[in-house]
């Protein structure tokens, strides 16, 4: 029987994960302000423009507003505050 040995774990120490709750949903988007956030990946502005056009044709009572952060991948507190202040829902794309 081969000898058993003990070795050390090479992984780092992960942080504790604190659960966060999703926002309460509206029953309908009619009359609501929808922010379309262009996350700045190549061609995502064209995608979001098509999304705005889709809402204009299919759900014209949804008010869409187009917005961009200052940088891709980096939080933009100013933009976030504006969406929280006068937006009801948001779609961000395309990418991560």
């Amino acid at each position, binding site marked *: 029987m081969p000898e058993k*040995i003990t070795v050390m774990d090479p992984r780092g120490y*992960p942080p504790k*994960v*604190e659960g966060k709750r999703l926002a309460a949903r509206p029953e309908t988007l009619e009359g609501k302000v929808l922010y379309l956030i262009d996350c700045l990946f190549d061609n995502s502005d064209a995608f979001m423009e098509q*999304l705005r056009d889709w809402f204009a044709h299919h759900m014209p009572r949804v008010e869409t507003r187009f917005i961009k952060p200052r940088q891709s991948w980096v939080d933009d507190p100013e933009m976030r505050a504006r969406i929280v202040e006068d937006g009801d829902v948001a*779609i961000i794309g395309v990418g991560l």
Partner: protein
Amino acid sequence: MGFAVALEKAGVPTIPVSTHAFARLARATTLAEGMPTIRNAFVPQPVVGLSPGELRAYIEGNDPIAKRPFMDVVLEGLTSPLTEEDYKGATFERTTPRFLAPDTEDNLRQLFIEQGWTDFLPIILPTEQRVEAMLRGTARAGDTFVNRMAPTVFREKWDFDVEKVAINAVMAGCRPEYLPVVLALCSSGFSARSSSTTSWATISLVNGPIRGEIGMNSGIGAMGPYSHANTTIGRAYSLLSMNAQGGSEPGDTYMGSVGNNWNLTACFAENEEASPWTPFHVDKGHRADESTVGIFFGGWYTHAGFGPRETWQDKFRRMLVAADHFSPPFIVMDPLVAREFDKLGYDKAGLIKWCAENARMKARYYWDDQWITTLVKPHAEAGIEPFASRMKADPEELISIFAPEDIEIVVAGGETQGAFKMISGRLVGGGALRAGKTGGSPLFSVDDWR
């Protein structure tokens, strides 16, 4: 994804839209953010290069992950009531044990491969005895905090201490006397296993007396596998990065589309003794008797040449314009090349200045680039220089693509050929890649970790 989580937390229902290639990464990210039920929607990959009509077809087609109409997924995600799972969120603690369960060597080797803790080359198993021997290479205690690391800026950071660095150094085959160099590299908190889709790597440079003390090679084959120290130090930094940051697994913690062989190991030393110029670390404000490491983040392209020959200026101009403009080059010169430039009247600063002045391309070429569009254009639109001026330029106008501080020169090689390489790599810790530094030298001290 973090942005969507922040909006949800602030009370704004949000749908993040990603391409289907990122579905697994999206799940992992939202779980680590404590919001595993976030309502994602997906479109097929790619989005880049598609016409408005093709993008509209995505919107009117199916979500490739949910396999239902994309807009149904979006509208339901924004309006359907929260479920019990949504209300719960996900709070949990994860731990990594100090020791793994005892097993045979063969089974443990298999475990390390299956868990994604290796680069698939053979490793030295990190027994406590071997790790203790490795720790004798530094005066620092094993539980000394070194830094934290993540595969990308939007992923969670994991902590690591001196013992974790020693464990990975054992696995890589390092000798204890190399440990201060490995610790210096890891202390940057800058991952050698970036998850960026661009397939970046880090290339490390060692300066000062430590090079000779541990037998690093800065002569013939300096950038190749011709030194135990060079090879295992670079490998240890890479292994530590993947393990300390929580993995480097394709589809989850690694998304580099093409991949990069510099990720295996990439560490070399400057041939200070044969260089006609001051050593790299002295240029950055260190004394010659200090030992440092520098990290170049790139490895995206390599150009090479001989010289300087009669037409070197044309050659350099072609190379600089062919260098992808989002990743400036560092130039590695054999001492023969450096001495010839010196004879022509160029010191390092003078040659770097010449390179920056002559790295010029038409504005329309500069802006027709995915990286520039995603990361640089927002700066230009915000009026930040030099990007704003580059954006104002006529599409046919020649614009400068690099500033002098973007370009570096290092002397290495064994004088068997007057060769040089121009390698993609921005110096970490300086300018745009500060890596936690707020000023001073962009290099990381080896002596602090002895």
